[in-house]
């Protein structure tokens, strides 16, 4: 039996979609026992200092459920790819300008896709910590991606520099998070990918008039441009807010 994103019983499958040990396997239910969550009996001799364990376990399950380790691997791979491309390629001006945006889009798409929940609607009613976990995950992944991509360009001719990376990545990630809320986590990549094409065209028009100057196409704006930074930041905050409050729109069955 193949496992999937919404598999209540943790089970590894060949697809790589499923195996999230989200909950303890349920013990056999004796006849006459009430179903549903039961209040945990207070453990005798429990120490207040060990209260971090449930939170830690929740965090770990969230990391497993959202495949955040794989997301980190994809982000690290995109940073490594950028580094290799910068070091090995003899890019002309145009290629050098396009290159960082391509790898930023990979990282942003990975962050957006990581919002997909394997549990869908049932997860939303399980606890009040879920929004905070979503917020923390999105912020941490975006920060990690910005840091890794900027580090990948250190000492290399990275067009726009670290500031450009931060702005473009934030904007692309915001689009991805908004897409996750609208289309679902699985299809959240369509936003960053579509915007990548538009952004690359905006860069292209800097040499082939008429140039596109709208700050909503921020990749074509200079790194210190306030309008581009505000637009990218606005999109990021909107995406972050929507993803925090509502999470990804994961249809039943996927």
């Amino acid at each position, binding site marked *: 039996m193949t496992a999937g*994103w919404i598999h209540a019983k943790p089970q590894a499958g060949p697809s790589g979609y*499923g195996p999230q040990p989200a909950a303890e396997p349920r013990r056999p239910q004796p006849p006459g026992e009430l179903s549903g969550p039961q209040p945990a009996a207070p453990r005798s001799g429990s120490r207040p200092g060990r209260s971090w364990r449930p939170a830690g376990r929740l965090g770990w399950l969230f990391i497993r459920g959202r495949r955040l380790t794989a997301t980190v691997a994809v982000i690290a791979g995109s940073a490594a790819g950028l580094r290799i491309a910068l070091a090995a390629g003899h890019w002309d001006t145009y290629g050098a300008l396009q290159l960082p945006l391509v790898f930023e889009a990979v990282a942003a798409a990975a962050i957006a896709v990581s919002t997909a929940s394997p549990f869908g609607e049932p997860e939303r009613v399980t606890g009040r910590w879920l929004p905070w976990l979503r917020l923390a995950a999105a912020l941490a992944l975006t920060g990690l991606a910005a840091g890794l991509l900027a580090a990948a360009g250190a000492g290399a001719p990275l067009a726009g520099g670290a500031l450009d990376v931060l702005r473009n990545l934030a904007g692309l990630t915001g689009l991805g998070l908004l897409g996750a809320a609208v289309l679902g986590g699985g299809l959240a990549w369509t936003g960053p*990918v579509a915007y990548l094409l538009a952004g690359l065209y905006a860069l292209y028009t800097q040499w082939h008039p008429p140039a596109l100057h709208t700050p909503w196409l921020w990749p074509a704006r200079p790194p210190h441009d306030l309008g581009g930074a505000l637009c990218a930041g606005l999109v990021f905050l909107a995406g972050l807010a929507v993803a925090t409050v509502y999470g990804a729109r994961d249809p039943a069955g996927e």
Partner: protein
Amino acid sequence: MTAAPAQAARTRPAPAARRPGLAAARLLRLELRHNAMLWLLPVVLALFWLTYYRKIMALPPLWNPRASSLHTGTVAVFTAPVAGAAAWMGTREARRRVSDLAGVTAVPRWARQLATWAATTAWAIVGYLACLAAVYGVTARQAHWGGPLWWPAAVPAATLAAVAALGFAAGSLLPSRFTAPVIAIAAFFVVALSTQLIVGSHSYWQVSPIVAGPWDIGPDAGVATFYPYVPDLAMAQLMFLTGITVAALGLLAVAAGPGGWRRLSRPAAAVAVAGLVAAGTAAALAGTGTMDRSGMIAIPALHDAASDRPLRFTPVCSTTGVSRSAIPVCLNPAYASYLPATVAALQPVLSQLAGLPGAPARVSQAAAAYHQQAGNGVAIGLAGPHLAGTPPVYRLLLPVQLVGPAPAAQESAALLRISDGSALVASVTGAGPGATPAQDAVATAIMLAARAQPAPPPANAPPAGRAPGAGRSTARRGETISGSGAGPIGVSAVPALAPGSPGYAAAQRFAAQPATARHAWLMRHLPALRAGQITVAQLP
């Protein structure tokens, strides 16, 4: 006792006839209705409109540059969404955890996958055909001559099939939530940025489907108007893309494994290998290409010698109507829309020269000749001298025939007036390197009278190099490849005389003469002037 079974056998309904074609059609219809590419089409079409459609429509109404731009643009815009959608569809069975369930159905796994791939490709091609219809429909209304180019139109369609096959194979073999985005962006990266590796016209990377012609010059308005479109590179690309598609689909059949057709494994493996061989052969063929003199890639193994013969056409001339000029100006009918502007730019000079001994009987547009230089350099210019034949015909190149962005109408007229106007005057008076001061003064006077005063040569001559993104070319425009003639476009063939010099004063004096007096003097003294027997002091 034996009658009952016999009767049962008689009354048993006949087994339904197997109609595999109908079943396949039903399956395809289901896949078409539930395909992610359908929902991505509006996004892709909007992106195409934003990025390439307006750019293509701003190009001159000529078939080759628009077809080439459409080719490059649709491949660039469609590749990532199609690869992503195909990969997404490829992960579907794993995503919905129905692999086991679907594995026991009557339809083999590979057949199901083939239907999904076909539906994804079909929607992508529907979107592409919409773009094609828009561009070709508008161009058909605007173009004065020629017809649609179908070879460059076929390559994007084959590209979509190949990209969908690769994406679907990746999604099916490596189902993960990250497969679709990574495949989409990786496909775009490979297709779009692999062109950085193209060096000269002998590059294997020209087989990349985004390449519509010599990458050094891009969509060029001087191509496929005097010579037929050479489809060699498109043939190699189609072979490459077909090979990739077959290999990817064959790999899917091989990987279908226990859930699929076991009998299919060996033939599928053979088909996959054949596809790879075809793709490799096509890349090798692309590496043998060279840029011919008509500006297209010729691949010896695929080349048809008939495409080397010039096209036959009836030129459009300025002999009647509002475009009538003192000396007829004739253009290739593909450039008919440029005739009024060309005549308007040259008429002041032509009216000064008409009837003079040695003046051209006609000004005729010539084919641009292309010459591959070291690295990514390309020289584009006129092959042979400007003035040739008896009676003499002045051969010109329109600025739009040269590499680089097509100049605006006013810029084009200014370039013509300076370059070809001065070259016409120099060809009649003999002005230029080695000429006498009187020849240069008379030429300057004619240019002053025609209000086409030669500008001093710019410090950095003509548009050299290419805009970023168009390659790393050092193409030079307007260069005369062989023979004598005007130099780079935008530079006057008449030497600029220093204001205040005796020659410039004589030129101003001669230009101030009435047109009839100036013409009469030239009719009498032009042979002597060309022979170097007239001095500056002898000018009226």
